[in-house]
């Protein structure tokens, strides 16, 4: 025990045996802790704030401030408070905040209106046999695609239709954005009576159900 205390006194390191014998930590440990605390206090940085006085414009110009009597000043204060009360009364109620989702909806409507000015988009439903005229990049002439709408995905200005057709014995499905500027014209030829929103079963049917002259 004595050896342990001697080691502590010399090196400042506390061995676990010292803690086992006493409930409270020995004075050396407390001294070390307090010294560390003092160190930390000394090391703390304090911001020094300076108050810079600024002169008024009237003082700079050298104009003397008008001196008013106490009675006059009281009257002015009373008049000012009445004016403030009058100004506060006619404030209109604050407008409700527009949420982000509503903004997107408004923008969608605007874009759709602009797109419909350029070309009229007919009412497209699954089962419609349509003819699309679209412009390919770096090409002058319009390419034509005819087929049956097997699905429609409504998403505002990003609304898409999936058109299916058999070309040379192979089924081809192309998804077109309805409001795309590349699509110049959409014509509904006729409507096929269907009882589904998605006509994916046409993939398993005979090719004649998806073939159009």
């Amino acid at each position, binding site marked *: 025990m004595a050896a342990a205390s001697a080691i502590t006194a010399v090196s400042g390191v506390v061995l676990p045996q010292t803690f086992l014998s006493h409930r409270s930590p020995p004075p050396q440990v407390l001294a070390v802790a307090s010294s560390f605390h003092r160190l930390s206090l000394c090391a703390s940085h304090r911001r020094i704030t300076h108050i810079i006085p600024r002169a008024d414009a009237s003082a700079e110009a050298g104009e003397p401030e008008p001196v008013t009597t106490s009675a006059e000043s009281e009257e002015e204060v009373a008049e000012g408070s009445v004016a403030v009360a009058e100004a506060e009364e006619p404030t209109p109620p604050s407008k409700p905040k527009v949420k982000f989702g509503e903004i997107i909806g408004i923008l969608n409507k605007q874009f759709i209106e602009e797109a419909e000015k350029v070309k009229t988009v007919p009412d497209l439903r699954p089962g419609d046999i349509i003819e699309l005229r679209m412009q390919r*990049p770096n090409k002058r002439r319009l390419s034509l695609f005819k087929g049956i709408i097997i699905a429609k995905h409504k998403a505002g200005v990003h609304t898409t239709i999936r058109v299916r057709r058999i*070309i040379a014995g*192979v089924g081809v499905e192309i*998804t077109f954005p309805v409001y795309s500027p590349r699509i110049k014209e959409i014509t509904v030829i006729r409507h096929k009576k269907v009882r589904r929103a998605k006509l994916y079963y046409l993939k398993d049917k*005979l090719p004649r159900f998806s073939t159009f002259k």
Partner: protein
Amino acid sequence: MAAFLRSKCSPVGRTLMGSLGNSLFGAANSSVGAITRPSHCDAISQQIRTFIQMRTNLKVVDNSGAKRVMCIQSLRGKKGARLGDMIIGSVKEAQPRGKVKKGDVVYGVVVRAAMKKGRSDGSEVQFDDNAVVLVNKKGELIGTRVFGPVPHELRKKKHLKILALAEHIV
């Protein structure tokens, strides 16, 4: 009807009618199956619409002599090949007296894929089958004709000869 007749007949007649009834009903069922579920559409309905990877079977759509190719290596990307990519395949089925024979290892360009492929204008194209055109290492066509529709994305991939020979460009 057949069951009713069988119940009224003698044991011999019953066996005869039974066989007749079974054959009749079997024929009827088979014909209905043929009408409602055509055999050529089974492959389409079972088509997995994903990347063309190892062991994917592809249809050969040129006159090189091969009918069916199995992909053994995709030369593009980690996951697999898509529309317009090159693959290495093994000929699984071939016509007699063709330019390639069964078991040959060949290069091919994917001209049709069941997986969706996006385009720059926002549209997406997908086909009902996976098809390939056989080429050599340099990318020159083995065949002289290309059957069926091919997408115009092949222009970007510098496969202009395929586009020139194609029946339809989608």
